[in-house]
């Protein structure tokens, strides 16, 4: 058999050699294909006037009408501003906090205390969003709430300027412990000889963290940052929606809640698909930017 045969024969050779591997991934490929790629057929809804009786491909083609409608909507500026500010704050703080927590936990000597702190910090991750929002409400209730009693006679949830901070602080509180696990895993792989060597060279605690720990987890940070970037505009629907009230609406209407109001409540499938697609496009742009930066800076990238 020639070494550089035609494409087909090379392919044949490839499958002959690796068919077991391909067979193993077949179910996964089928699964992804069916649940991630087949539904993408529905994206065309965004470019059509959807007529349910005619099926997905039935309505007349209207091109970018719905995108234009969204861009020209009086709500557009405000929604984008809210979405970006809420999601960027959440992403940045939600990215930094677990790293700091992991570095701190790593400094705890006793395994018992370490385990205890870890358990306590990751517990809130398992509380459902509805319960978390109810808890936030109760905490902030003026007069009787855990925090609300010190904060005047109106609830902080009624202040539009505080919506973003309340959102990201509670988000960080809920997930910081859980998200720090991956960094702790990375830290556990540090060769103890490095610590010994650094100590011999006269390094103190902070220098250990700076010159040993941080470089160790940097690649993990890079990858996680890129992955998070891809969903930067996907502000969780439930939490924002549950925290909304008439007073904070001006800073709490985000793309996902608007899509819900337009699409599900008012049955405008085409319009809401267009908004969703717009959201995805922006996410994609963010992802590419983050990946490029990360590639330049730390030579870590996902593509």
């Amino acid at each position: 058999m020639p070494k550089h045969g035609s494409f087909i024969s090379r392919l044949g050779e490839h499958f002959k050699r690796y068919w077991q591997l391909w067979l193993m991934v077949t179910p996964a490929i089928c699964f992804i294909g069916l649940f991630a790629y087949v539904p993408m057929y529905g994206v065309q809804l965004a470019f059509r006037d959807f007529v349910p009786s005619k099926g997905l491909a039935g309505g007349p083609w209207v091109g970018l009408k719905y995108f234009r409608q969204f861009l020209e909507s009086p709500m557009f500026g405000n929604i984008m501003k809210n979405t970006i500010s809420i999601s960027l704050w959440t992403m940045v703080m939600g990215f930094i906090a677990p790293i700091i927590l992991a570095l701190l936990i790593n400094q705890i000597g006793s395994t018992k205390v370490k385990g205890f702190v870890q358990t306590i910090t990751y517990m809130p991750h398992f509380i459902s969003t509805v319960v978390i929002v109810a808890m936030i409400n109760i905490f902030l209730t003026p007069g009787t709430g855990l925090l609300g009693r010190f904060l005047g006679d109106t609830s902080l949830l009624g202040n539009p300027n505080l919506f973003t901070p309340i959102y990201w602080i509670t988000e960080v509180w809920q997930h910081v412990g859980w998200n720090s696990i991956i960094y702790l895993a990375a830290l556990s792989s540090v060769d103890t000889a490095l610590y010994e060597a650094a100590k011999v060279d006269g390094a103190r605690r902070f220098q250990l963290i700076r010159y040993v720990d941080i470089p160790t987890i940097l690649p993990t940070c890079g990858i996680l940052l890129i992955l998070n970037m891809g969903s930067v505009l996907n502000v969780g629907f439930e939490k924002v929606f549950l925290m909304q009230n008439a007073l904070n609406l001006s800073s709490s209407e985000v793309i996902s809640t608007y899509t819900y109001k337009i699409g599900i409540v008012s049955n405008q499938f085409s319009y809401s698909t267009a908004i969703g697609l717009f959201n995805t496009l922006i996410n994609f742009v963010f992802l590419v930017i983050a990946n490029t930066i990360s590639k330049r800076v730390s030579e870590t990238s996902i593509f």
Partner: protein
Amino acid sequence: MARRGAKRRLLSLAAAALASTMVLAGCGGSGSDEATVDANGKPIVKILITRYSTDVAMKTMGWTKDIETACDCTIKWDDVADSSWSQQKSAVLASGDVPDVSIFTFDPTDGEQYPYFEDLSKHLNQMPNVKKFFATQTSAKKMVADKEGHVYVLPSDRGENYRVSSNHMFINKTWLDKLGLQMPTTWDELTKVLTAFKTQDPNGNGKADEVPFNMRRIDTTGFSLWNPFVLLNSMGITTSFAGTSPSFQGIYVKDGKVGNFLESDEYKSVVKYLHSLMEQGLIPADALTREDAAITADTVSDGKTAKSGMIVGWATTDFEKLKDQYVALPSLKATASTPDSDVTWDSSQDLTELSNHAIAVSKDAPNKEAIYKVVNALYGEKVSIQQYYGDIPEDVTSSDNSTYTVNDRCFDSSTKDPCKATADRFAGWIPDSATVKNDQASEALKEADSAYTKAFANVDQTKDVMPIYVRPDSDDQTTITNNNTAVLNYALTKTATWIQKGGVDADWDAYVKKLDSVGLTQNVKLWQKYYNEYTKN
């Protein structure tokens, strides 16, 4: 040989993988091959009904047997909880897989927008009860028929017992008497009364725990039931806060002219008044962010010591054990100089009595003949009564042909043996000729409503209220909805801020301008167009 064996294994594995994906893909398919006749050869009729999750199962209700006798068929009930239906509805409509018969599930707009439903107006002769209903209650038919006269969803009518407003103000009469105060008649007098409630410890427990005006928070989606803007009626804007009324987006009618109260001076006055109440601590400082649970807790209190001075609500039953302390507060005048003839009250009678989404039939349903018989039976007087109140004779006793007495047990929420009824989820018609006695729910409503008789006399049901049968077509409805999202988003935030912090005068002009630019004017024009169209004859 080994190689061939491997090949065969590979093939069978591939087939298995393929089969499993097909199973996955098949999950969403509808089971259209199900039997349409039962073992005895009788047709099967499947009915989906959306329920309160706490109700008794449909098939245990005695009257369902009467319908089965009438249609000579077998009924399969599918009880769906409200909460899960609201998630399913859009998906069901998009897929076109609608149930054969559905109760309290779709509304006429769905019927016009989606071509899945049978035009029931063509089959009135097979449903004489429905025919009679439409002939007697003309606004019921107008409410569901489109311009060409198609009827895809039948309405239901719970009778004259419910020809009442959905909104009433209640004030604590015991407190008034104790403090030696008169019933307030103007906003100023109300302020004085509420101040006395706040400062003079009318519930006598030595604590300043009274909530003078236990106000509901403003929804982010519009003006829903029991909101404080019923005070607009003090200045002649007739509200109609219930169900599908456009009042929730601010639309009102006065002398045949449509307007939006969000940009009216009357609205400004109410906002100012509410702000003054909040400033003086007569409305809870966190009223705009409070959860419903907190409002209810203050309303029913502990069942002994009342906490609320005043609420906007449904009936005195809202107060549960404390209901004897409260009476309905008649519509107030804005100022002492307001002429009596200007004062109106929330006019939502038709919306309380009628519902426009009772029953729909799928175009492709099998056994249509049996279905029409079922529908006809449901709209019969006796079955309607039983659907609404409960089984005869266990829950309702029928003394002569058209007089019914409801058992006390039906109104006891703590009983372990509730009456077997669907209440307002019913598809039927209780005609005015039937007399229903001891309907405690409606008695409480009627008692509350009687306080507003004078105010109602100033309201012309067609010229001052958007009639329930005025409905924009689906294109305009889309425009209206899109505009509304922007209008309400801006207006409600502003309103909430004004009530909390004041400043309505300074912002007003810019606010009105902004509302017009985001579509409020266009919406008013559209509603005027449809109002004219539907009321011209």
